[in-house]
């Protein structure tokens, strides 16, 4: 059937200027009027997996050795793995590489549709965050990438700080898919004074490369 479509829970009011079809998703590569940062990028189409097992030490998703301490993350070849607790890891495929299918083992669950996934990149992003959460991103003890599991705009989220570099910092946020509309509204509202605008996937891909 030709009209099968996967719909992202994240909807921006901006007008897409470049769209790419990928695995039934309409991925917006670029919006008109993206401004000069900070940017909010929808990555909800990127595959995400829940990995839970009491024997995590023996499991290597996409060949990665998993971080051992909860709160620690590893980000290699576009795969981000976040240690959530003793038995659980969230795996995000941020690269958009072709082979994005889930490993076969029963310990994995596809949770792509469980959450929204957005990236907040550019300057002043932590000034936006402090309007929405009491989590301490600027804690000097924490070295990127690191995972926070905590409230953001009153909703439980997983937030991975990828870079604390003051001019070009970046983080990835996931929260329950149902909160997508309101989470996006509150992030954009909080970011308005800093010039936060929705941006297409290219913005994130280029940021990762840089």
């Amino acid at each position, binding site marked *: 059937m030709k009209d*099968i479509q996967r719909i*992202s829970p994240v909807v921006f009011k901006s007008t897409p200027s470049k769209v790419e079809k990928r695995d*039934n998703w309409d991925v917006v590569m670029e919006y008109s009027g993206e401004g000069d940062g900070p940017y909010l990028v929808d990555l909800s189409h990127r595959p995400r997996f829940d990995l839970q097992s009491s024997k995590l030490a023996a499991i290597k998703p996409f060949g990665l050795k998993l971080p051992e301490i909860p709160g620690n993350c590893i980000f290699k070849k576009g795969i981000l793995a976040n240690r959530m607790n003793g038995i659980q890891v969230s795996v995000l495929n941020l690269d958009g590489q072709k082979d994005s299918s889930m490993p076969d083992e029963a310990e994995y669950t596809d949770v792509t549709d469980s959450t929204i996934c957005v990236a907040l990149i550019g300057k002043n992003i932590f000034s936006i965050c402090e309007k929405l959460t009491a989590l301490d991103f600027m804690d000097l003890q924490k070295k990127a990438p690191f995972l926070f599991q905590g409230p953001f705009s009153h909703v439980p989220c997983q937030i991975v700080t990828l870079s604390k570099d003051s001019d070009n910092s970046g983080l990835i946020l996931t929260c329950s898919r149902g909160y997508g509309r309101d989470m996006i509204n509150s992030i954009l*509202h909080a970011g308005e*004074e800093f010039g936060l605008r929705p941006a297409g996937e290219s913005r994130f891909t280029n940021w990762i490369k840089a």
Partner: protein
Amino acid sequence: MINRLTSLPTLKIDTAQKLAFMYKGKKYYGVKGDTIVSALFANGVRIFGRSLKYHRPRGLYSLDGECSNTCMEVDGIPNVRCENTLLKDGMVIKEQNVKGSAENDMMSFLDKMDWLMPAGFYYNVMHKPAKIWPIAMKQIRKAAGLGKISPDYKMPGKFDEIFLNTDVCVIGGGPSGMMAALSAAKKGLRVIIMESRPWLGGFYEYRSKEYKNSQTLHDRAKQLANEVTTQDNIRVFTHTSAVGTYNNNLVTGFQIGKKEDVFDERYIEIRAKSVVAAAGCIERPLIFDNNERPGVMQIGCALRMAKTYGQLPGKNAVFSIGHDLGLEAALELHDLGLTIACIVDIREDGQDPQLLEKIQAKKIPLFKGWVAKKALGAKRVKGVDLSSVDGQISKTFPCDLIVASAGMTPVTGHITVALGTLKYDTYTGFFLPDQMPDKMHAAGRILGLNDSFSIEASGTLAGLKAAFDCENGSIKEIGDAKKALENLPGPVRGTKLVTAPVKGRKSFICFDEDATIKNIKQAIEKGFDVPELIKRFTATGLGPGQGGIPGHNLPLYVAKYQALSDVSIRPTNVRPPLVPTLISTYAGVNHKMFKITPMDEMQKKDNGIFRNIGVWQRARYFSNDLLCKKEIENVRNNVGMLDGSTLGKFRIHGPDALKALQRVFVSDMSRVKEGRVKYSAMCNDDGCVIDDGVVVKQGENDYYFTTSSGRAGQTVEWIRYHTRYDGWDFALVNLTDSMGVINLSGPNARKVFEKIIDIDVSNEAFGYSEYKEFKIADTIPTRVMRLGFVGELSYELHVPSSYMKSVWLMLKEAGKEFNIQNFGVEAQNVLRMEKCHIILGQESEQRTNLLDVGLGFLWDRKKAEAKTVGAVALSQAENDQTRLKLVGFKMENNGRAPRDGALIVDEKVRGYIATARDSFSLNEAVGMALVEAPLSKIGTRLEIYEDECGDDRIYGKVVTMPFYDPEGQRMKM
């Protein structure tokens, strides 16, 4: 408009930039940097309002909002503290609590009626006879009070919030606070400074006294402010009051926005590792007759009016002071052109000799051991009676300004709110910090210090102590800083005088509540002997100034009046907010956070009417017919679609997954077969039913199960809680948002369903209570259960949320020929009620157990080793005849349905209606009710009491359940 002083380096105004505003309907001009009060003062306004009880004229007294004297209505917002609210272009300002105007208030006769209103008169007088009270209350409310607000008032303005983390939070941006911040910041720590004025500098900022080497104090303030603001790791929040300090160093406050800010006010919550309290001192008001007459003001107020706002506060002044700051201010104001008739100083000796010399040189008369006794003049000061402190001799001076202050007193609220304690110090006459809260350090004038170098050194020391709390620095450093401080001048002797030698009938200890010294005496004579009780009886300190005026005078006066040998008496408790804070500021931005389903957009297009249900927004109706007749009939006769995406959905897997299920579900989960749907329930340890749902087996120790919408958020928590001692190895994945759910129901459901899939869905191939997984169009992984919640043939499709729109559209397209329609939550509620399928929370409440609602058949007694949650309580409740039972009923004589929650009564309450509706399917009103066991027999007549029905009752009769399709053939067809 008076001419402003324009060449002072301390000015905060720009006279070149005029700001227009409306006051009492007329246009006035202020200048940029003015507060509302300084602008009005420049326009000759001296009376800003009338007092709460006696309607006495009130004028400018302090500049930091310690009293309500200058509270006015600004742009429709009542009780704005105008003395520290910056003037904005176009503001509209009105007076409060006046009949006529503040200048000529028709209620001012009340000032002469004070003998009628002794302390606590409303407790004493107006309750006998009781009939008087409503009448008296009306009159009192008309005459008394401050600003007015209507119940439907909507607060204008933009409010924001931020949540900060820091190592050290410094409360107070004066010299000691800035030094503390610098010493902590130099260790690489993150520091926040909160300063309530719009600029840093504290009491240095407006003074021209020499700091050292001919550097003035205000230059020193600038120097420190510059160091602080250029230090990367110090965040400075000016115009920011700290209003609360709590456990674990949580500091709350709010900031007033500047013109360019996106907020008018924003709430700030700071979690610090250590706190420095450096809020300095305020002046302790001098109490004498008419001590709040317009024209009486504090030292800092008089001096800052000149040096900050460029206005001389009067023409001819008398100073009645008890601190060197008063002498210093008199000299400065004298040099700026204020005539000073005389200075009276409470102190017999101990003044700074340099200041005395200068006063003599300028030929200003100075009387030591003297004090102001009475301000003269009806609306404004016209003179002052002075007397020796012992009251023996007196003299009168004409003047238009009395600068009055008994001395200083530390601002200790941030310490005591965090449960630190104070102790009276006989040398300074201050209540000084005694036990500091954990990881909080005091610095500066709060410690009684007066010397600039000591104040700064105490700041450095506090900063080091705070750094030490953050595991940074050494004991030795702290020791060295302590020594440095000890080598500098310590606290100075302070005055202890509270009141001039007066009887006190018109001597006000609290301006906001119009409480006089006489009122305090009345309270003490009635037996209220401690400040905390006197405060409540006389209302002293209960006004918007948050006790700023009576704060430390009340305990001192109480001690003096009772002739207590030592001041063991403590000030009354202050509580947050320490500064009046708008509720809107506390509310902040208030983002609404609700969940929506993947069908939200499509249902809105189909005219769904949405309601907030728990964390979700759901389509409750699809037309304005809230009885949902069409929606219901369409499901019964044709086919409908319901969005069931809010159902909790979980995967549980891992070696001990089955054990975990056995623990929380009442049924024997080992009997769940692949390809079949098992309905079961969860109870709590009281056997009360908390959740129900279905379970399907997807593999060995791998299950997919649903929960009710309302419980989904707690399911993981619940299962982990009840297995927390077992060390079992299982994994739970919350898939609630991952899967959209469509309930396709009605006799035509199969005809629609088979059009979008290519598997056999005949009753033989896919029967009732069966489960299948397949792909729609070879792409969309779909899980389908055949259930019958609404009592018709139905398929529950679980589809990945991102594909939901496509499947929805396919079903709509496929159903077009049958005229498929949406149905909402309310229609479902009626449909399932007709079938007597329960909804937990509707047919149950907290005390309802599994057996009460007739679900006992789910409970498997043979798995005792599982220690099923609720099983013990259930076996104990099995023979309990005192419990309620769920029954079905229909209304007598074809009557209407009672309201949900109506009571079932005879001479007592016997139960209540769970759900009842006028059923279109049955053409009569039916429902379910929880009733006492004796009433549960078929045929029992139920007497139903509804809210406000008076003596009228409606009646129903217990009948067998279910009402609709009792054999259950329709859902199995």
